[in-house]
């Protein structure tokens, strides 16, 4: 063992992990075709072919689970595999005849194959109650419940018009980057922070706490003879930024935490420019272990989209075409005050034309 401590070496070079077919055809791919749900082939200018089989993963993997993937890779594709930007696992084959047996084995292990092309892929998500201090809901549990509900849209049993990307974040920090997803599931706190005056004086710097609040709801105050803060609850919009800088201002609250649903965001530049997701449902309760209100709401939106959208049309493009009022009608959602923006750019979200469907 070296006594010299190694640091700043960066990640291992990716070339070490590329299968020979990729090394030989790097940058020379010519086109691809989707062969069946979850399976595609990339064809090179050289004529070489690379088969990809994509399988769903819970993302939270044990080393045992990873080892199982490694074994499958050894068995079917010389040990080469990768993960996708949405946490799926991909096996990289050159031998077409191994596709079917690999799929069979994956399915047997409980890993559905799919998510390629027009389909619903895995849910990008976050830590939730498994690891984060900030969570207003769980992550993995909600994801599991929703994916169970939508499995047929992942594995190709039910066709859809285009890609549909779901993301989940367990608090407004939005680590799941839900702000540009076709459907976003977002944990929300709805009660202003409960001030732990005792802890606050030990753990937090009052000027920082005061400065952290974007709505200036927090003011310095003396409590029981000690310096602390007070909060104008009318001004709180539950961003939890104060909690991020001061642990003595917990936001989590079983009675008030829950989930909001957002729709119509996208990232790609295809056809329409990237867009933010917009509020569909301000609040649904946390109802573990299966969050039925949430799965039901998501399913309903997916169904409306699947039934009415045109080929290629992402959720947001579909809504732009039919208009928000009609989307609310089709999905049976209620439009409430909460849907009307009142933050910085709110004015631009008002309907500033006479374009209306009557």
């Amino acid at each position, binding site marked *: 063992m070296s006594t010299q401590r*190694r640091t*700043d*070496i*960066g990640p*291992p070079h*990716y070339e*070490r*992990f590329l299968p020979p077919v990729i090394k030989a055809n790097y*940058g020379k791919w*010519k*086109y*691809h075709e989707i062969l069946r749900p979850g399976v595609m082939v*990339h064809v090179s200018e050289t004529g070489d072919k*690379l088969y990809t089989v994509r399988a769903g*993963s*819970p*993302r*939270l993997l*044990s080393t*045992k*689970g*990873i*080892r199982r*993937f*490694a074994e499958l*890779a050894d068995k079917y594709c010389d040990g080469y*595999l*990768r*993960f*996708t*930007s949405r*946490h799926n696992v991909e096996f*990289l084959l050159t031998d077409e005849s191994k596709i079917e047996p690999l799929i069979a084995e994956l399915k047997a292990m*409980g890993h*559905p194959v799919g998510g390629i092309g027009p389909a619903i892929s895995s849910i990008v*998500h*976050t830590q939730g*109650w498994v690891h984060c*201090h900030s*969570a207003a809901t*769980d992550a993995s*549990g909600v994801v599991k419940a929703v*994916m*169970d509900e939508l*499995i047929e849209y992942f594995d190709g049993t039910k066709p859809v018009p285009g890609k549909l990307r779901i993301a989940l974040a367990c608090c407004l920090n*939005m*680590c799941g980057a839900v*702000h*540009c997803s076709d459907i976003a599931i977002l944990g929300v706190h709805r009660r202003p922070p409960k001030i732990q005056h005792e802890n606050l004086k030990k753990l937090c710097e009052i000027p920082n706490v005061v400065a952290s609040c*974007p709505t200036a709801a927090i003011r310095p105050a003396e409590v029981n003879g000690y310096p602390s803060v007070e909060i104008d609850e009318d001004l709180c919009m539950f*961003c939890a930024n104060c909690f991020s800088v001061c642990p003595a201002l917990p936001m989590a609250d*079983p009675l008030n935490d829950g989930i909001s649903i957002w729709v119509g*965001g996208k990232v*790609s*530049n*295809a056809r329409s420019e990237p867009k*933010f997701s917009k509020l569909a449902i301000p609040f649904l309760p946390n109802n*573990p*272990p*299966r969050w039925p209100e949430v799965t039901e709401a998501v399913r309903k939106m997916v169904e409306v989209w699947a039934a009415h959208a045109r080929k290629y049309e992402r959720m947001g493009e579909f809504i732009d075409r039919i208009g928000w009022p009609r989307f609310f009608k089709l999905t049976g959602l209620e439009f409430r005050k909460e849907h009307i923006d009142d933050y910085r750019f709110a004015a631009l979200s008002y309907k500033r034309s006479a374009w209306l469907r009557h």
Partner: protein
Amino acid sequence: MAEPQRNTPLLDELKKGPWPSFVTQIEEMADAGKEACDQLLRLLERSYNEKIGHWKHGGIVGVMGYGGGVIGRYNDLPEEFPAIAHFHTMRVNMPSGWFYTSDALRTICDIWDRHGSGLTNMHGSTGDIILLGTTTEHLEPCFAELTANDFDLGGSGSDMRTPSCCVGPARCEWACYDTLALTHDITNHFQDELHRPAFPYKFKIKCSGCPNDCVASIARADLSIIGTWRDRIRIDQAEVRNYAAAGLNIEREVCGNCPTKCIEWDGNELKIDDENCVRCMHCINAMPKALRPGVDTGATILLGAKAPIVEGAQLSSVLVPFMKIEPPYEELYDLIERIWDFWGEHGKNRERVGELMQRVGLGNFLEAIGVEPVPEMVAYPRDNPYIFYEEYFVEEGEEEEEEVEA
């Protein structure tokens, strides 16, 4: 087993159903003797019952000489759940494109079985390999084993975060630059910025090979590097006809979805007015065998995306409409450094670079980093008349000088 029997009826529900279950993954580690996993399940069951999490703010923990890469985590019931009283995560920098060999994966698993819970995320949403749950004393030895096997930590805190990229030229026919090479090079070029937080806040870089943006860089990276081309879309007319013959309604589904309506199909030939093509990718996506990006490729550099905290979510916006992306990437690195310099000097604590850009105004920001304004940077020029004209004339004889900087 001296331990109280694990009783997790709510979580057990989540072992059912077609989607692979995270509960099953935790459980098998618990069953294999990982006490931390057992307690994690029980703690989680409690959260499911109480509808509240049980984790506290992390303290500052890490490995020697690094300011990031480890997220400290403690539970608020340490007496009851001592095995996860500490439950820190280590963020391990993944290889570009998330490619692995089975051996490499097993190496990581071996290390993590020795030093942690045996739980991971493959991957975190920034892209790192997340090793989920260990105690403070394991951090340093785990790190030593990782580096011995050529793995290093990724970012956390106010540093450059682990850059990530799409699969790019390794498997995608549309990659307009080598996303894997660039990502690897950036990561190594800026190791110090990755490991020693010295910025006002986090800084993320994501590299997508084309405007499909398969790593969501425009939404989730402070610096978004999105491949594109300057010349013409390559057309294989025979293949276009094949698509038509196979039943694709080219007029409606390809031309009809072109945002600038710059494609025409007369039933025999596809014509693209490339001058008006905005490189949205749709036609190429729809007919991958027939159409390809041009050959004069490079990238658009965009700046400023972030989640909402605290000034509202942002998408990145165009900073350089087109840049050639070739080693040694001097032009790009130079630009990045000028951005960091200005941000480092003028950014407030916890102010993302995109927020700074908004606060000082894009025009001033460009001036500060030495980039000329071009109309490609805006969706539209200003529509309000509140222009800060920066100079005015004064009459001769007035006290001030002829042309004053206001």
